[in-house]
């Protein structure tokens, strides 16, 4: 099943944790998919640079599956990451099938390791900053300053924060009077679907299932049907605009989509 080369590489590392074991992790504690992946990675107890991405992908996908069973609402970010990891696994299984110009499994694994290592590095840096000798906690300025001539003193202490808070508060207050609640029928607007896909442009791995990108809470019943229809229409529009490619292998078969913006991005100024 697996490419022998990769199997041997992966088996160098800690034995995969059974999916059930990884599920003790609660979604509430995590700030997004990368945070979750980093926690899973730390469970492997090896240097992030040497982490088994296959094992990580399995754990992550198992986590997603359990969240789905528990009907937990996961943000779109989690789904995008799941799609990416699924694609990674398919690359691992069929390395020779990688289309020209698309990353192979090794590249993908290296990228994920890099992102996890970067997040960890920034967390460590944050801890180092917060541990410094801080004014008002560890070191103190003169407690009884005397006014000095050479120092320009500002007359007003209003800040950008005050200005933006005032503006937002004021506009919302005035407009708030004109707002009324509207009960929404279970219809995903095409604009919303389009916005959703557009937000993911640039991050959709090659050929992904359209249904993977349904908004959370729109994955069953009438809402699912509306969501699929709108996502498909939006995908068609984006295909017309040259931002996506669509593919359907057989009538009534699954619809796949592929991002075309990445290449475009590299060429423009």
């Amino acid at each position, binding site marked *: 099943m697996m490419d022998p080369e990769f199997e041997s590489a992966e088996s160098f590392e800690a034995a995969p944790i059974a999916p059930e074991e990884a599920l003790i992790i609660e979604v509430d504690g995590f700030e997004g998919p990368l945070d979750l992946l980093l926690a899973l990675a730390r469970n492997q107890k090896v240097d992030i640079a040497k982490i088994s991405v296959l094992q990580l992908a399995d754990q992550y996908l198992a986590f997603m599956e359990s969240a789905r069973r528990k009907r937990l609402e996961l943000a779109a970010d989690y789904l995008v990451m799941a799609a990416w990891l699924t694609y990674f696994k398919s690359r691992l299984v069929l390395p020779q099938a990688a289309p020209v110009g698309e990353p192979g499994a090794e590249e993908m694994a290296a990228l994920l390791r890099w992102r996890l290592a970067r997040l960890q590095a920034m967390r460590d840096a944050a801890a180092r900053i917060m541990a410094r000798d801080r004014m008002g906690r560890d070191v103190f300025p003169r*407690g009884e300053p*005397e006014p000095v001539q050479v120092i320009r003193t500002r*007359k007003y202490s*209003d800040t950008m924060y005050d*200005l933006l808070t005032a503006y937002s508060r*004021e*506009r919302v207050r005035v407009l708030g009077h004109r*707002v009324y609640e509207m009960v929404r029928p279970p219809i995903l607007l095409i604009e919303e679907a389009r916005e959703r896909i557009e937000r993911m442009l640039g991050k959709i791995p090659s050929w992904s299932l359209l249904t993977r990108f349904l908004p959370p809470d729109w994955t069953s019943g009438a809402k699912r049907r509306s969501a699929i229809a709108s996502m498909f229409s939006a995908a068609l529009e984006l295909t017309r605009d040259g931002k996506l490619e669509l593919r359907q292998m057989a009538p009534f078969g699954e619809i796949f989509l592929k991002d075309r913006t990445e290449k475009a991005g590299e060429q423009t100024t």
Partner: protein
Amino acid sequence: MAHPVDPETAVGQEAFELDPAHLRIVEALLFAAAQPVDERSLAAALPPQTNVGAVLTELQRQYEPRGVNLVRVAGKWQFRTAKDLGFLLSKQAVEERKLSRAAIETLAIIAYHQPVTRAEIEDIRGVMVSKGTVDALMEVGWVRIRGRRRTPGRPVTYGTTEAFLVHFGLENIADLPGVEELKGAGFLDAVPPAGFSVPSPSDALGPDEDPYEGDEADLLAPPEESPAADG
């Protein structure tokens, strides 16, 4: 020939029998205190049996020739600027103030919606805006009259000044964040009320705006030099 600083006058160079650690502690406590400190409070930070009076006398002696002196006021101790250097101090402390809520809101509307007339500010805020509020913002130096609207009555239009940009740390009035950015930074809820939009403010003269010629000649100063975005 150059000669080094006399070690006698340098703080910390003296030979004294007192524990330098105690001097350091009293020095730091007096420095950070917001008002004069009594000896009992200082003693509480030192080991029992420490002669606080001797520590203070030694500190006072060390600081005596310096720019800052240790003085005793009403039985308590405090650091003060040396008397002969009083000329360095300004007579009056400037108390930092904040604009009133009405004023900062009006300022924010002017910043985002410029060029804007007073009637338009009232329309956006949904309340009467007193002339005093706009006048006060002009007095602070953050709001100016930009021009006149080419509409009946030719009302004056308001905008922000270079001083406004400097104070709020903007290089350019167009750098004010838009709706998405206000949302992203957390100033607005993810779903703002219907009809919420933010104009893109600009320094450039609006299409229906005439430059302000001024009612009084003294309002017309020579054009400013190129704006320097220096904090």
